[in-house]
């Protein structure tokens, strides 16, 4: 489309060039598909791979959104159901035209133990990638998704516009981890929303450790069913003149809901981060807590924490804690008193701050992502 060369479909990730796999790995994508329940790969404007691991056949469905819309007429009811097409320029643009995206459906009652992985990559020059993702966790299902958005090293200046709508039905549980690995030349605009039905659970983890030119997003979670639960965690390391404006929002529209937002932000090298969060209590009882910690590593960067709590019922219990500052000297000297040099002590604290243990990940996945973070060149 738009004059770009159509990417060839492959039958397995290992058929892809090494440098593509390398870039995908940096956003959490595992080349050996047997550790994954399904794999979706989309490069520039083309679907490259969409495959369900045979062990999980019947338990989940994975298609390109365009193919899924052709296959299921009912899917039209989900498309643009929780995000307004005319919300902003990004949604308008994706509404007019999109290239693809993933459609994921976890079947009712299915337990999908292995994570499903999806990767949206930009490899060409000046690519404006536009996708629309839809995820449906049917009643009583349980699954994990890792989605990586990454950039080929040869890619130059690009834009990623992604609309994602999540539907978590009654008693379903979804753990969704998104890892962004962009570059200094990328403009990134995700637009996401999630709807939770009765007793549904949605855990979302967001990790950004590499520089990005300009990223703005504010995913919202609407708790529409009683006793719905959500946890939204994010770890952001802004460096290399990154401009990041990231938020997380939870809205309680039913009784018994619980929500927690945790964000850790570090900034250096002339970066600017707005860390937003909002919890709205429109129904009660409901309990929400948000925590935002910002660490400034130099004097050229700015972290602006904007936590908001809106209570509209007397029985809502909303709280927040926010802190922005430098590494506390007493923490450094404490570690030095155990024999570490000042530099090593600082590095231990910074790595601790990026600790993925705060993410609600199952142990295996946690280890995997933790070792991925360890291997990354954090420039510390």
């Amino acid at each position, binding site marked *: 489309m738009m004059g770009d060369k159509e990417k060839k479909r492959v039958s397995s990730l290992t058929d892809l060039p090494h440098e593509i796999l390398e870039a995908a790995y940096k956003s959490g994508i595992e080349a050996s598909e047997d550790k994954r329940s399904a794999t979706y790969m989309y490069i520039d404007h083309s679907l490259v791979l969409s495959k369900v691991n045979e062990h999980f056949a019947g338990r989940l469905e994975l298609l390109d959104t365009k193919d899924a819309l052709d296959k299921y007429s009912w899917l039209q009811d989900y498309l643009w159901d929780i995000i307004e097409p005319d919300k902003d320029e990004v949604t308008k643009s994706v509404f007019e035209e999109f290239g693809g995206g993933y459609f994921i459906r976890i079947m009712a009652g299915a337990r999908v133990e292995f994570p499903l992985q999806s990767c949206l990559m930009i490899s060409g020059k000046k690519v404006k990638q536009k996708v629309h993702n839809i995820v449906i966790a049917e009643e009583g299902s349980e699954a994990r998704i890792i989605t990586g958005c990454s950039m080929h090293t040869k890619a130059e200046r690009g834009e990623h516009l992604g609309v994602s709508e999540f539907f978590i039905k009654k008693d379903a549980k979804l753990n969704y981890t998104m890892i962004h690995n962009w570059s200094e030349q990328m403009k990134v605009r995700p637009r996401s929303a999630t709807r939770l039905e009765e007793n549904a659970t949605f855990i979302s983890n967001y990790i950004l450790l590499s520089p990005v030119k300009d990223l703005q997003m504010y995913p919202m979670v609407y708790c529409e069913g009683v006793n719905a639960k959500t946890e939204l965690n994010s770890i952001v390391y802004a460096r290399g003149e990154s401009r990041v404006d990231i938020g997380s929002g939870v809205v309680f529209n039913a009784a018994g809901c619980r929500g927690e937002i945790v964000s*850790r932000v570090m900034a250096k090298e002339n970066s600017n981060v707005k860390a937003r969060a909002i919890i709205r209590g429109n129904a009660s009882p409901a309990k929400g807590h948000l925590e935002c*910690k910002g660490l400034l590593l130099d004097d050229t960067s700015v972290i602006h924490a904007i936590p908001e709590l809106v209570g509209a019922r007397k029985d809502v219990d909303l709280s927040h804690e926010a802190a922005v500052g430098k590494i*506390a*000297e*007493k*923490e450094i*000297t*404490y*570690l*030095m*008193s*155990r*024999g*570490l*040099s*000042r530099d090593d*002590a600082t590095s*231990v*604290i910074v*790595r*601790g*701050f*990026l*600790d993925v*243990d*705060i993410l609600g990940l199952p142990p295996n996945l946690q280890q995997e992502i933790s070792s991925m973070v*360890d291997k990354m060149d954090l420039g510390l």
Partner: protein
Amino acid sequence: MISGESMNILELENLSVEVEGKRILEDINLHLPEKSTMLFFGPNGSGKTTLLLTIAGMPGYNITSGSITLNGVDITSLDVDERARLGIGTGFQLPPEITGVKLRDMIKICAGGRPGDDLTKEERNLIKRFKLDDFINRDINLGFSGGEKKRAEMLQMMALKPKLLLLDEPDSGVDVESLKLIGRELQKYLKASGASAFIITHHGDILEHLDSKYACVLMDGRIWCRGNPREIYDTILARGYRECAECHVRHPMED
């Protein structure tokens, strides 16, 4: 006290210390023989913690005169990490909380390893003995009770294996069971390793577990009295620090 350079683990000579421009310690002279434990008593604000943290090399404690010698090496101008590597282990009264750095990471750091390394069998046993199994994967000191913090500090000391332990009130805010545990483990370590200890305390209970022949009373930034720990503690208990101030048998320059 026994003198002679090779026999002392720690020597403080004419040590004066300022904090934020204010003189806190005045002309402290003290020799701690190797393989010995010394207790420090004194009213709040007398300078005990300042003395301990000055020996540890913590920043903010400005030595205006005098010297500190550890095992014959002048450490007066060394940084806290250099002193730690020479064998000083500091157990803090109020240790900080560090987000994302777990107790298990601290144990590995103390043992000279890297955070995230696997715990050895010996380290696991140590953790069990200090009843901190449930805390190893928690951020250090975050949400720990007073007693848990003290046990975690002592546990780190055991992993650090210092030649000289500087312990600031290891017994405060600690329940009877934890006190017994800390006291016994500490004494066991001191005996087995031949290390020395310098302990600030307000309570005599820890004395029951320690084999200590030396004690000092610090008041107004000076060493006021030296003697047997039990005798000094009993006197303080019976007659308070006022008695120390008025005591005519004090020997401030005794060594």
